[in-house]
């Protein structure tokens, strides 16, 4: 109650301070005269301007107090139309990681030759990146024919089961007794291609048992579109028309070739069979595969086929190869051949 009284007194004082004069009834003073009428056009301060129209169209009946000017309002902004709500697109599910292809074979690194069989070329360059694997569908085991079982520098027979279980192994640049050179090999007297053992142990025995006839068990196919350019005594040569490479397929069954010189062949086309032809004395059953390619500033030369074969086999098998480390650290060294010892292969 006391607070109300104080508030009322304060309000009264403020209201009175706004007055020009205060008349108390009964004080005997005459009432104040009304202010003089100012004729139109008389000098004096200009009349107050017309109040700005209410932006919202609502006339304010109360004159704004001069001490408290109305706060400046921003220019009226036409409110932007509410954007159409975007259709709710369900968050696309992340692409599932493709299943890794199954491991179909194991291989040693390029240039990792059998210990003591020479010094390899460790390049993983693909000189025939799109080629078809030269064996149509049989299992294949690129490996040395001289340093593995049944070879001249080893023991046992060529049909030894261990030859058909071994991881792949490079033998480009493997040591040879004769003067065969390849610019891409660190040493002279080298093997200029990749030997590929084919099939199974039983297949090897079967091929052996058809002698003196030659086997027609495992098909060899053209690795690239091209032309059969030459037939030698124990090999076919094929000029690739996509890459310009020259391919040699050596030790085919020359009595059962499926193509003739001058024939145009397609990649994957059957051209012959794996055998052991070597112009007289047979070798082991295998395909010796060579690539010759034009190298800038060097000329046309033998190049390592190993990694091109790895990739081609992966495509053929719709799987992948697993590169593995050898159990023993290979010693890259050049063997010393006994006097008079010759490796023609």
């Amino acid at each position: 109650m006391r607070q109300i009284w104080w508030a009322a007194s304060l309000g009264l004082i403020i209201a009175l301070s706004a007055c020009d004069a205060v008349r108390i009834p009964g004080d005997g003073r005459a009432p104040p005269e009304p202010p003089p009428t100012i004729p139109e056009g008389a000098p004096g301060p200009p009349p107050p301007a017309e109040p700005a129209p209410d932006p919202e169209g609502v006339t304010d009946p109360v004159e704004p107090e001069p001490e408290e000017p109305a706060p400046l309002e921003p220019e009226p902004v036409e409110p932007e139309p509410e954007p159409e709500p975007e259709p709710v697109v369900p968050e696309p599910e992340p692409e599932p990681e493709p299943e890794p292809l199954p491991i179909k074979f194991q291989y040693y690194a390029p240039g990792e030759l059998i210990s003591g069989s020479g010094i390899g070329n460790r390049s993983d360059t693909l000189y025939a990146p799109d080629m078809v694997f030269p064996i149509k569908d049989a299992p294949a085991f690129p490996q040395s024919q001289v340093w593995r079982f049944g070879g001249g520098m080893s023991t046992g027979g060529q049909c030894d089961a261990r030859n058909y279980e071994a991881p792949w192994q490079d033998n480009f640049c493997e040591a040879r007794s004769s003067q065969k050179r390849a610019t891409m090999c660190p040493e002279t007297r080298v093997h200029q291609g990749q030997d590929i053992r084919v099939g199974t142990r039983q297949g090897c025995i079967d091929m052996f048992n058809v002698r003196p006839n030659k086997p027609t068990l495992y098909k060899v196919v053209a690795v690239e579109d091209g032309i059969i350019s030459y037939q030698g005594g124990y090999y076919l040569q094929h000029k690739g028309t996509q890459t310009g490479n020259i391919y040699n397929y050596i030790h085919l069954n020359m009595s059962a070739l499926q193509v003739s010189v001058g024939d145009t062949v397609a990649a994957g086309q059957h051209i012959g069979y794996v055998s052991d032809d070597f112009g007289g004395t047979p070798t082991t059953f295998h395909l010796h595969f060579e690539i010759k390619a034009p190298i800038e500033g060097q000329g046309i030369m033998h190049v390592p086929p190993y990694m091109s074969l790895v990739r081609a086999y992966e495509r053929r098998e719709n799987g992948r190869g697993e590169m593995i480390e050898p159990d023993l650290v290979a010693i890259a060294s050049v063997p010393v051949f006994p006097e008079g010892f010759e490796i023609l292969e």
Partner: protein
Amino acid sequence: MKRPARIVAIGAVLALSACFPRTEEAPEGIAPVAELTDQAVESEAIAEPETGPKKAAIDWNAARADFANQDSDTVTTQGSGNVAVPILLPEIPVTIQSDGPPPLRFTEVPDGYFAVVTGEAYDVIINGTDRLLAAPSNLPEIDASQMRFEDTMTGSQISFNRYGASYLVEFACKGPPNANSCIEEDDAKQAVEELLLAGTQ
């Protein structure tokens, strides 16, 4: 009513200011420099060595000049006139056609040609190509115009470059393989030196 309108206006101003690009907009189709750098680094990290073949630049003027100055009229012109490389062939004596295989079989291919010349002790296979694969960095630089002789599993071969093209002359030995080739290095080089131009563009 006024307060919400004021808030909307301020929000719109802020929103518009956020729409202004902080940097000058790049022309359409050109990635901003920063992005380009990132992409370059990334692609460099996954770049594989170039292995695809490229085409050699052939010095046709030199080939035509040699062809015009050649001191022989017995070499038979071969090819369609559009073979990708100058054609080098041995001089083949003209013979009466017999039942045997022709002494020279010429085949044009997209990158050049190959030809087979039948002989007694060996056949000669000549390949010419305009394709080139990048050389591995560890190969020593050589004078590729010089002949390089190698024994092979099928005989011997000589490679060399001329007019910008790459050539390989193989001597395919007949008969069983032997520790020694059926042709000596000097004889092989002599045979290659005697090759003649049998066609240019």
